[in-house]
């Protein structure tokens, strides 16, 4: 489904601020894979997602989606294949527009926006049914501006919007990190349900090792712009938090330096 070959991304190349974010990554994501990605700050997790989504273009290497070479496609063209949820719950929706208008944008993802009416009565009904599944009572507030909603509500809507049009790949970039624990748990549950029901190919970056272990069928650990661990299936199921910590200590050659890695 997604193939990444010899990917390399350097920021500010040739200047004193040069920063190698992705050193060299090769990865094949199978259809239906649900991959959780962990790693310390600066490991290149977010950069990797941004490269797949097309927000950044790589210095070297290629990205293929369903065999199509999309390396140099602009972000908006790639969006036809990709659903995305950002870390900041405010990033995924337009605050000055209503819930149904945001959904209309998502429902039209990957198609040219034309002069058809944005939200028809039928759209309204369909969106209402979708939003009812959240159980947040938002199905009665479709004409409210999204800016009036809480971060958790907005993140739930973003998640629903990302899957409104079935994406070939769903990218989740620490999408629960900015939410309070109960809301985070709720959004995570929704994530799991949506991915399972729709059988979506997904990549989820997280700082929470327990989430990384509990969710998905495959776990990838990144460090210094490289993949240092990639386990799937039965092997992943047997993995424990302690294993991951050991792995980290071993591969880094020192103790886990980043306290964020210790979120268990």
């Amino acid at each position: 489904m997604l193939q990444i070959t010899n990917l390399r991304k350097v920021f500010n190349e040739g200047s004193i601020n040069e920063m190698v974010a992705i050193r060299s990554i090769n990865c094949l994501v199978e259809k239906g894979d649900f991959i959780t990605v962990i790693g310390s700050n600066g490991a290149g997790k977010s950069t990797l997602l941004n490269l797949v989504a097309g927000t950044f273009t790589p210095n070297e290497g290629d990205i293929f989606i369903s065999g199509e070479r999309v390396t140099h496609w602009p972000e908006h063209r790639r969006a036809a294949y990709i659903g995305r949820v950002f870390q900041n719950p405010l990033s995924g929706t337009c605050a000055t527009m209503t819930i149904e208008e945001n959904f209309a944008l998502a429902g039209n993802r990957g198609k040219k926006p034309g002069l058809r009416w944005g939200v028809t009565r039928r759209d309204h009904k369909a969106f209402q049914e979708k939003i009812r599944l959240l159980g947040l009572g938002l199905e009665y507030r479709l004409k409210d501006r999204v800016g009036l909603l809480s971060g958790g509500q907005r993140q739930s809507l973003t998640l629903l919007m990302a899957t409104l049009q079935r994406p070939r790949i769903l990218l989740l970039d620490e999408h629960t990190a900015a939410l309070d624990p109960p809301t985070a748990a709720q959004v995570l549950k929704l994530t799991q349900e949506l991915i399972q029901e729709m059988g979506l190919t997904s990549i989820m970056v997280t700082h929470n090792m327990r989430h990384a272990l509990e969710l998905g069928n495959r776990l990838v650990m990144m460090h210094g712009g490289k993949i240092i661990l990639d386990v799937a299936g039965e092997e992943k199921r047997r993995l424990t938090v302690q294993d991951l910590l050991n792995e980290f200590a071993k591969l880094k050659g020192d103790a886990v330096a980043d306290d964020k890695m210790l979120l268990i």
Partner: protein
Amino acid sequence: MSFYTFMGSVEQGLVYAVMVLGVYLTFRVLDFPDLTVDGTLPLGAAVTGSLMLQGWDPFTSLGMAMLAGALAGCVTGFLATKLRIMSLLASIITMTALYSINIRIMGRPNLALLNQTTIFDALAVPAIPRFLLTPLIFLAVAGGCKLVLDLFLHTHLGLALRGTGDNPQMIRSQGVSTDNMILIGVSLSNALVALAGGLVAQSQGFADVGMGIGTIVAGLASVILGESLVGKESVLRQTLSAIVGSLVYRFAIVVALSYQVGFLRLTPSDLNLITAVLVVVCLTIPMLRKRMRWKRA
């Protein structure tokens, strides 16, 4: 203030409301501060005037003015998106170029349109006197533009345009090219401003290369004034606020010009200074209000 001065300010308020709708589209919807309008307003006047002098029909020449305005907006959009020039600077560049272009179009710095058949002659009804007819026509045009804009901003394209100003990252991740949206939005905005320019030229009977100076500031002042009076909760309210803001602004100008303050008597050339002060006041009032609330709390 006499009745005729009052009607004059209503007339001005309504014709410039078309321009304010254009400014609203860039400034508020797209979040793209566009100074091109200072050049597009006289461009609209120049195109309309020159074509009319060559015997074109007054309506078609207005259409051509809109087309010219859209083209000018396209240039600004192109500079800002494809050439990555800062939006403000891109629009200043186009505005500067338009000064020369406008003189080229007219062949000289200004045109007199005396004895030309204008839309007001074409639409004249014997029963309605001219001082009522002109504002009525302007009301119809401004209202029509508002209606079309309201409808447009609720289509898929309109939603994408609004999203581009609100959250460009999100819009790109929904598969919309924000560059294209900026191109479309800025073109549409300048088409409206050029239409206003053409209407002004036809009603005043002349086109002048200097008539656009201060357009953007007047536009911003009107948008902000309108919003503080009408509110900005929905698209329909925002477009209405553009029209109301334009009326109130022109009215305030007429009032300011008709009174003597001490030994000082304001003249039309003081207009830009007044407008600049007005914009500063309008922009700072929300902040001052907030501070007052904090103090009380």
